[in-house]
């Protein structure tokens, strides 16, 4: 089993709050080029269950201004795919929670798909989230390679995704489904309303084989609680990046504590 699957089954043992998974997204190379490993260590220390490491891209289509800016700054700081792998070389000596790389397909295509997957396995990456790698292409060309290196590919589902397609995605997934909270790019949130809660309930009631983890628009304890009332967990990205921008790494422990407090 892979660390993501282990973590998810471990969470299954707990009822209530303790059973809810908190995942954090941050952009590698932000705010400083060499912050990556220290941020990972602090997130684990403060009780985060899983981390998505953003591989910065010049043209992040699905991201709002906060993650766009952090990506641009990370690239300006000199972050590259190769440097990220160098930084992560010994990460498994100090960090044991599941690690996922989230990025766009083009930089990975340039690195070489198989070479990238191999490197992920070497440094201890457990999964990939590539929003612009579509289901059909994945199944046809990449599924076997990902499997060979024990990498879990995570697909997105949105409020507009049809039930049929959700079932197809569920079949193709073997970790969790990333439930995008609203029809929106990242970082757009005024909190959740009835529509979103109905949507979470609707997908939750489909009895899928993969657990649901909600992302986009979760920024504080209230939205975390709303997002996870019907699902297994939630991912926070833009709100965490904003914390790093404002308080630097010293803000991490307070931020994580504030999410878990309710």
């Amino acid at each position: 089993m892979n660390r993501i699957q282990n973590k998810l089954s471990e969470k299954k043992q707990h009822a209530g709050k303790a059973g809810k998974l908190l995942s954090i997204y941050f952009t590698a190379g932000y705010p400083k080029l060499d912050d990556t490993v220290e941020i990972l260590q602090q997130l684990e220390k403060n009780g985060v269950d899983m981390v998505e490491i953003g591989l910065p891209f010049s043209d992040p289509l699905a991201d709002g201004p906060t993650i766009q800016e952090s990506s641009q700054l990370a690239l300006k700081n000199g972050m590259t795919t190769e440097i990220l792998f160098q930084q992560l070389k010994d990460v498994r000596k100090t960090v044991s929670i599941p690690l996922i790389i989230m990025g766009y397909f083009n930089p990975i295509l340039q690195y070489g798909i198989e070479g990238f997957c191999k490197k992920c396995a070497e440094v201890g990456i457990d999964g990939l989230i590539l929003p612009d790698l579509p289901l059909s292409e994945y199944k046809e060309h990449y599924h076997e390679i990902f499997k060979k290196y024990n990498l879990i590919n995570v697909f997105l589902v949105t409020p507009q995704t049809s039930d049929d397609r959700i079932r197809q995605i569920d079949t193709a997934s073997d970790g969790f489904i990333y439930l995008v909270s609203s029809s929106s790019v990242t970082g757009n949130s005024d909190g959740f309303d009835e529509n979103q809660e109905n949507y979470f309930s609707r997908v939750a009631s489909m009895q899928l084989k993969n657990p649901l983890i909600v992302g986009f628009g979760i920024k504080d304890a209230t939205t975390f609680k709303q997002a996870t009332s019907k699902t297994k967990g939630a991912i926070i990205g833009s709100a965490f990046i904003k914390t790093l921008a404002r308080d630097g790494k010293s803000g991490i422990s307070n931020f994580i504590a504030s999410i878990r407090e309710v």
Partner: protein
Amino acid sequence: MNYNVNEKGYYGDFGGAYIPEMLYPNVEELRQNYLKVMGEESFQKEFRQLLKEYVGRPTPLYFAKRLSEKYNTKIYLKREDLCHTGAHKVNNTIGQILMAKRLGKTRIIAETGAGQHGVATATVCALMGLECIIFMGEVDIKRQAPNVARMKMLGAKVVPATSGSKTLKDATNEAIRDWINNPVDTHYIIGSVVGPHPYPDMVARFQSVISEEIKTQLCEKEDRENPDFVAACVGGGSNAAGAFYHYLDNLDVGLIAVEAAGKGIDSGESAATSALGKVGIIHGSKTLLMQTADGQITEPYSISAGLDYPGVGPMHANLFTSGRGEFISITDDKAMKAGLELCKLEGIIPAIESSHALAIFEMRKFKKNDVVVVNLSGRGDKDLDTFIKYFNL
């Protein structure tokens, strides 16, 4: 070999739909419907009528006598510069606004670089009474003030793209993000043969009226359907796609795609994607694009704002790698000279984009009896400022 799109949305190895799941329902809706809608008699009737009465088609195929004499070959100009709004762009926006209406969309978004596609989109939205939002790079808004004013006069809202390099590729990113945020009521009118399938094919089909007319017109003038060569400039590649379309699989017709070399291919300031690009993903399509070794998309340069796109459409990427198309890159200087030459020899002021295609006659020889059709994609009024500065007029 077939150089058109296959049933999976690929031209050879290029194309596809590399889009986030958030866009899937929109793009899928379009994919499932576009051929059916375009095949409907009522659609064709309305499209053809608007092209005739509103756009002013057919545009003339003009024998450029003095230009032909100078280069000792037979040069015809397909006068897309005479279309309403001054360029071929409107062929596509007319088609797509009719598509949007049939799909029940009430809100139109588009990206624009120099502003030509923005103006063509704002025009058809005014014609149909639909809400229109144009994304334009903040840098381009400053460079292209007259077109910004035109869009506003036509009732469009112009939204500055402030991300990234603040030019065309970023305007396209912003339009895509807007579509993610408005998945139900909005249609995105892409201006070129780029983006996820079915856009490249749909836009090429709307622009294919250009080569359809060339065939008929050449019969009248030369008693033959096929020229020896068709030449067109390529940024994303929509005018070239339209001019090549009905000749793609006819190997007797040479297809010449003309890219902007900017200050020279090796200068670091260029937009010659075939020479400088590698296979990758941009705006949902697998194609050739200019990028760093690490896969970050780079900013192109050309004196012509309509050609500085870091990729080319997948049809053109396939024409290049298969060898079916002949790719020539033209520097700023050569394009500007060729543009001014057309003014002096034929009394036609071309757009700087189209001037690139005219510059091939300095670059390569044609036989005396060769029939060469150059797609004159747009008129030069919008470029007067650039011409004035360049030639100290």
